């Protein structure tokens, strides 16, 4: 079911960018309203789409709620092979190259009108895959931040670290202050977190050059991140257990872990994982590799993409543009779905004027978040992110568990990713 088309198809998709846009005239007009289906998982999407349907009787959109994640990517590719894909699909940034190389997504650059300037360049580059084509519109983003227990930091007399070096010192200081407490944990169960940290350090894991992919997972920047965390785990300065487990929830809730490297959506997670700690957390920029820098990575976030199967591409693009750039739509997405909008203007809009309920002690939460989001490093994804992530989970879970060699684990991930691409017929340069 994972049948990937080869480089040829990918290149075709990439290079015929400008042509593809012209081919899709839907005419439509005379045969009544256009019906579009939209696979999405963001909660509250139905209510947001309802706004559109009321204002646009000619283009009616039906949301079909799906479960998020890699399974949906596979499911969409299968549906596209059967010619049954929906008109629009919500896709995470890192899934776009996979969908494009399977010929699922349409290039919508021809139908778009001035959407580019609404988004930060780092996000826009992720939906163009660095080409002239546009494969999706950014919906939400997940700039990474540092969350910490403000009350316990004061109690232990800790400063908020601004560089990773200070972060390491803080981690050691916590261990000295209380042997049962850790600053945080290194978790290997979500590769997206590590990918974001690597982006912050300047890594570009996949880049395409003509027909050749360059894979740089085991590059200098990523190795720096891996060795940094590996060192902290080895000396027991940070814990080596995964997050999102009941044990992690409890440690976060009781203060056995003081901090969490996460993204802008963390308040939602914290409010279920650690409900007793409302109002005692604070958010700060991610520690930096260069003193005084303002770099951050992305963890999470998704786009609205238009598929090749759709009969009404223009209408679909019109809807996608409205959904992700119109102030009313974005405000509804924020209030109904709790997303952090990708559109720059909306990040300081009225809907985000107040802090999230869990962070009432930090009234300027979203103003600071918008500043941090400015420094989002570009991310570049390849056609087999799922394979790389799977390899990461295996290799780093083992390395963390045994407090072993993180650099070697990174090399394993790199090899597994390159091997998989070669076995699927991609040309890979290292």
């Amino acid at each position: 079911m994972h049948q990937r088309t080869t480089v040829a198809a990918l290149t075709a998709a990439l290079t015929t960018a400008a042509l593809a846009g012209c081919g899709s005239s839907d005419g439509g007009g005379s045969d009544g309203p256009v019906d579009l289906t939209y696979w999405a998982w963001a909660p509250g999407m139905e209510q947001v789409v309802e706004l559109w349907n009321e204002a646009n009787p000619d283009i009616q959109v039906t949301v079909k709620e799906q479960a998020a994640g890699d399974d949906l990517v596979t499911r969409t590719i299968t549906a596209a092979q059967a010619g049954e894909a929906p008109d629009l699909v919500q896709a995470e940034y890192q899934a776009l190259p996979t969908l494009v190389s399977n010929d699922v997504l349409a290039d919508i650059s021809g139908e778009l009108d001035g959407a580019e300037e609404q988004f930060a360049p780092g996000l826009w580059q992720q939906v163009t895959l660095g080409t002239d084509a546009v494969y999706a519109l950014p919906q939400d983003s997940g700039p990474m931040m540092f969350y910490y227990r403000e009350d316990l930091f004061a109690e232990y007399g800790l400063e908020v670290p601004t560089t990773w070096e200070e972060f390491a010192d803080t981690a050691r200081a916590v261990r000295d202050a209380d042997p049962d407490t850790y600053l945080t944990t290194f978790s290997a169960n979500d590769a997206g977190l590590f990918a974001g940290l690597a982006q912050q350090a300047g890594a570009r894991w996949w880049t395409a050059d003509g027909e050749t992919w360059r894979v740089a997972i085991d590059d200098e920047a990523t190795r720096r991140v891996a060795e940094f965390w590996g060192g902290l785990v080895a000396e027991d300065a940070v814990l080596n257990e995964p997050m999102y487990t009941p044990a992690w929830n409890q440690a976060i809730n009781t203060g056995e872990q003081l901090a969490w490297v996460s993204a802008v959506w963390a308040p939602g997670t914290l409010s279920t994982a650690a409900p007793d700690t409302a109002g005692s957390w604070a958010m700060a920029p991610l520690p930096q590799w260069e003193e005084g820098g303002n770099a951050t990575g992305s963890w999470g976030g998704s786009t609205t993409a238009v598929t090749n199967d759709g009969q009404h591409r223009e209408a679909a693009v019109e809807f996608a543009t409205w959904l992700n750039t119109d102030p009313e739509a974005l405000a509804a997405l924020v209030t109904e779905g709790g997303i952090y909008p990708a559109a720059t203007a909306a990040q300081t809009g009225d809907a985000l004027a107040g802090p999230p309920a869990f962070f009432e002690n930090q009234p300027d939460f979203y103003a600071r978040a918008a500043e941090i989001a400015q420094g989002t490093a570009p991310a570049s994804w390849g056609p087999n992110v799922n394979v790389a992530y799977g390899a990461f989970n295996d290799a780093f879970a083992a390395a963390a568990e045994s407090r072993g060699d993180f650099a070697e684990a990174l090399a394993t991930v790199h090899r597994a990713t390159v091997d998989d691409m070669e076995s699927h017929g991609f040309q890979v340069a290292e």
Partner: protein
Amino acid sequence: MTTARVTPQAPQAPPAPRAPRRVALLPTAALLLGALYCLVPVVWVVMAATKAGDELFSTFTLAPGTGLLTNIADLNAYRDGVYWRWMANSALYAGVGAALSCAVSALGGYALAVYRFAGREAIFGVLLTGVLMPPVILAVPQYLLLAEVDLTDHYLSVLLPVLLSPYGIYLARIYAAAAVPSDVVEAARMDGAGEWRIFRAVALPMMLPGLVTIFLFQFVAIWNNFLLPFIMLSDDEKFPMTLGLYTLLNQGSNSPALYTLVITGSLLAIVPLVALFLLIQRFWSLDLLSGAVKS
């Protein structure tokens, strides 16, 4: 003839007073351990379903919480009670699917057991291979085939693939071979009954306990099925419960998984299964040859 139907035999008289048995320690211990192994997760679900959101991860795992009614009310309120729709869909898929598949199995199994015809063993051999083939492997090809006839995302797309259950036919054949003696079939023919009447009035009642087993197996399999509906359906109004609960768990990274709803939903999801087993269990007490010729 039809009087041979399901009259559960009176409990057999205990065979002569026995000497007080010694408790077989080792087997009993093994069984207890097995029961514990199976029941602990159920206890976990029951306990976790009673916990309010803030108690879920902070109180002792197997201690009851205080939020069961709130959880059920929340589940009931979630997207206007879509959970009950999923439950009804599951009941439809499992009930109709199991009943139809049971009928197909009964016909197929009976034919394979009673008639001699060319290719009988070949057909049976193919079916046996089907038993070895996990249904998971077939889901994607079935999707592509159904897409050809525009039946995906339709109730039929989940019902059609479960109609033919190789395991059900296999069981039905074995059961029919043992429970429907050829003497009885011959006798019915002598009395002038047509083949259809023999099947319906003579063989079917004898096969009933086996068919109940097949029905239950199929019902549970379809009730718990995930991959087939996952691939076939995209409209969440048609989702069965397994898929619906899965969407609750994966709401994207910026919104927390709805753990309490999922756990409460899982608890409610096993209630119909338990009820069904308790209800149908008594048919199993029939032994293989009840009502047939006594040798």
